[in-house]
């Protein structure tokens, strides 16, 4: 009796494990991925309003405590922001000249200027829902013209890429995620190329495939390359060089870079409606 009960338990768990493995296979297989993606899409359409309702209820309570505990920090942050606004106003006039120059240069190089591409402004509704991925969830989805593969930009540069698009929400993989790889160009006339690799949440990005002897400097900007079949349009700032050194005997320079976009301020971002050229 006890033996048959044990067998039944084991059988139940084996069946569930097989079902789980089948679901994982369906999700990871390119041809059947649309099935699991469809299920997730329907679930997200139901879940998102419910989640938002809960957030609407609890956020005033959270804000009250956050405000009470962080009053000093908020006040000093406000003063800092006021100072930055002043500095930005002062440099705005100078920048307009530079922008005109850049626009002309981009036209000459026959590169699509980001501002000429259609964008969808979206609000971040969720950040880092899993400890194992660097993703954010936006409040725009297929119904708003957001599709899988679209680049996402924020203040300062590239933020990531849309990896899942549901009816009214989408999931964006940040450039810091371990699966993120971006082809970039840098240096004079943008003649040097590299791959910027995410190293997981909280870790610095790295720039790989840069041979020894390539001229580099701290603070050097790296832009999306936009080469054939690239996942991003050219010219979007991706990262700036923070440290570099060439280990003896190494075939490439070891470079760490910082994202150009401020990834801690992602309340609003722009989804660029750009499809990679194949």
């Amino acid at each position: 009796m006890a033996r048959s009960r044990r067998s039944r338990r084991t059988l139940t768990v084996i069946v569930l494990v097989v079902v789980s493995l089948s679901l994982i296979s369906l999700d990871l297989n390119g041809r059947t991925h649309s099935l699991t993606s469809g299920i997730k899409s329907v679930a997200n359409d139901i879940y998102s309003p419910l989640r938002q309702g809960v957030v609407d209820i609890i956020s005033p309570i959270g804000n009250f405590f956050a405000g009470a505990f962080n009053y000093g920090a908020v006040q000093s942050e406000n003063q800092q922001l006021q100072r930055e606004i002043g500095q930005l106003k002062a440099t705005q006039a100078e920048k307009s000249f530079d922008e005109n120059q850049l626009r002309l240069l981009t036209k000459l190089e026959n590169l699509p200027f980001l501002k000429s591409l259609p964008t969808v402004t979206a609000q971040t509704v969720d950040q880092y829902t899993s400890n194992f991925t660097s993703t954010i969830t936006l409040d725009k989805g297929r119904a708003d013209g957001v599709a899988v593969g679209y680049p996402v930009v924020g203040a300062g540069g590239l933020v990531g890429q849309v990896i899942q698009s549901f009816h009214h929400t989408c999931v964006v993989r940040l450039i810091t995620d371990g699966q993120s790889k971006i082809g970039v160009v840098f240096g004079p006339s943008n003649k040097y190329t590299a791959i910027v690799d995410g190293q997981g949440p909280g870790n610095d990005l790295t720039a790989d495939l840069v041979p020894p002897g390539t001229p580099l400097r701290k603070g050097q900007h790296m832009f999306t390359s936009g080469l054939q079949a690239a996942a991003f349009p050219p010219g979007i700032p991706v990262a700036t060089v923070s440290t570099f050194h060439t280990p003896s005997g190494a075939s490439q320079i070891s470079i760490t870079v910082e994202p150009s976009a401020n990834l801690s301020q992602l309340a609003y971002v722009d989804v660029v409606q750009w499809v990679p050229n194949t």
Partner: protein
Amino acid sequence: MTARSVLRVALVIFVVLMVQQTMMVALRIGGVHPDLLWLLPITAALADGPETGGIIGFWAGLSFDLVLPTPFGLSALVGCLLGYAVGALTTAVDPRTTWLKPVAALTGSVAADMLFAVLGAILGQPQMVQIDFVALFLMISISSLVFVLPVSRLMRWALAGENSRHSLVSAQADGRLW
């Protein structure tokens, strides 16, 4: 499992999912946040044995898989294995033992996260092992110890009448802290 228990378990999974995705994700320290998912199969297994632990782990994992960016079915697989393992390994332990719940919650959650990351990496998601595991395990350990009691209470309410494991213990007399 009775229809009433199924409905209650579904409600508990939904509540924990909402708490996780609205409050727990906001409690990020050192790039990691608490994870309540694994407490569902652990507490179910402690309350009603390995089969229930495995089944509830599967459904809880599948519910979380619907809203997580990780491979669909991975949480269900780990949840199922975790529930079954915790139930099977603690069958011989007296459920009244005070250390059982905190120890099972702590070791089970850490083991589940490790398995989740390794399986994810094997399945082509190498970034899942490129995280700060020390910070993650610290956060998961502390949060598991803090939240195992309320989740356990919810699970016992959901599984009331299914107490095959607790047949040795009077449900009314079980007023202990852990």
